[in-house]
């Protein structure tokens, strides 16, 4: 109970910090700013290896996940691919990466040995 209370308060605190960063970066606020960001954030966290069911995940992994999404978005621009392709690529990455994880679990259950790196 106490832990959950702390967790959600801490989330509020962190979003406050994020809002200061964002506002000082773009110098412009609007209620619908960053509206589409919610699902991107979930994608980044999950790419970083956190489990949706809870109980696993690391800060480093999450940062790597965030880095990966922005790294890919930026490289797409550098490669002169029209930005219409952004969501397609991000979607495919989410599906493939979570798919590999999920499929490994099935393999593990059926007795195939997975060699951990």
């Amino acid at each position, binding site marked *: 109970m106490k832990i959950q209370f702390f967790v959600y308060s801490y989330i509020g605190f962190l979003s406050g910090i994020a809002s200061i960063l964002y506002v000082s970066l773009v110098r412009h606020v609007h*209620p619908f700013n960053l509206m589409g960001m919610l*699902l991107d954030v*979930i*994608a980044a966290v*999950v790419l970083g290896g956190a489990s*949706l*069911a809870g109980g696993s995940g690391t800060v480093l992994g999450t940062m790597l996940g965030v880095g990966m999404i922005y790294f890919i978005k930026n490289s797409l621009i550098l490669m002169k691919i*029209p930005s*219409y*392709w*952004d*969501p*397609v*690529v*991000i*979607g*495919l*990455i*989410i*599906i493939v990466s*979570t*798919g590999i994880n*999920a*499929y490994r*679990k*099935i393999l593990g259950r059926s007795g195939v040995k997975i060699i951990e790196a």
Partner: protein
Amino acid sequence: MKLKSILSGKRPAITYSKNMTFIIVLIVVFVVLSILQPTKFLSSTNLQQMAFQIPEFGVLALAMMVAMLSGGIDLSIIAVTNLAGIIAAIVLLSLSYPESLDLSMLLKGIMAEEAAVTELALQPPTGLKMFIIILATISVAIGIAGVCGLLNGVLVSVIRIPPILATLGTMKLYEGISLVITKGSPITNFPKPFLFIGSGTISVIPVPMIIFIVCVAAVSMFLNRTRLGFSIYAVGENSIAARFSGLKNTNVLIKTYLVTGLLAGVATILIISRVDSVKVGYGSSFLLQAVLVVILGGVSYLGGIGNVAGVVLGIFILRAISSGFNIIGFSNHFRNVIWGSMLVFVTIINYIIPKIAERLRFKTHSADM
């Protein structure tokens, strides 16, 4: 002794039926709004307007409900709706005007420019030909949506990605595909006969309302009377138990998401024929509203609990409240505040009332002894 009285099936002291609460809430909302603004709220224009707005959102909520009953969620319904709508619109326009339009012009967004459209002086075909074209459009929309749903189903059940992630990924994917096809420009100016589906009326009843009622009846029959519908409840309630009682969970889940996709396809037709245009991102605010209305309607987010009647009543309540607020003159943004607080409130009520009922039941039972 206590256990025995529970097992002998004594009714609890308070029988709490969610649907009764909804009917009471709906009546209260209607009465309050009618007293506050009798001339405007009860006017036929307002009621007809509500009847035009409910169906497209309602069908999306039904789609979300089917997915949530199986213990999952489908975040991709809006993206599916957009993708299917865009492809259906391209099929519709290129079949209707085969000579004067070609695909590259269409994709550059020529139909959105008033001047260009008047210059082309397009004449839609009439009679049987138009009817066949409309049928083709509808089947293309529903077919594409079905394929999208099927992909969701395969990802969720065969590869076993958690539903929220699988559909998040496909949401991005479908959204991206629609963006790549249209480059973000709207497609509009559909032939007039097609618009009858979304904005026509048969005497005073709007056509979309009729389609919505048919959908509600079909989904309700599907969930309560068919084998597959019952299996969806079973898988949502307890997937391991369902598997050991001989259900093929994989098949059931694939079909669940297929049904969700098909319903999204129906919603596409309703939306594009009402607003006479289609564009990436149209209706993206409906996504979380659909989740909201499904949970308000008494469906458990864990799956297995909930019925069509609750969801439909929830939709009606939300629409009545929002149009009532519009009439009274609250700002449109204030509506979100109300809806958000309603969701929190209803969740709390749904959590507390069964607990109180349980406590009362134990009290009455111990009094019996």
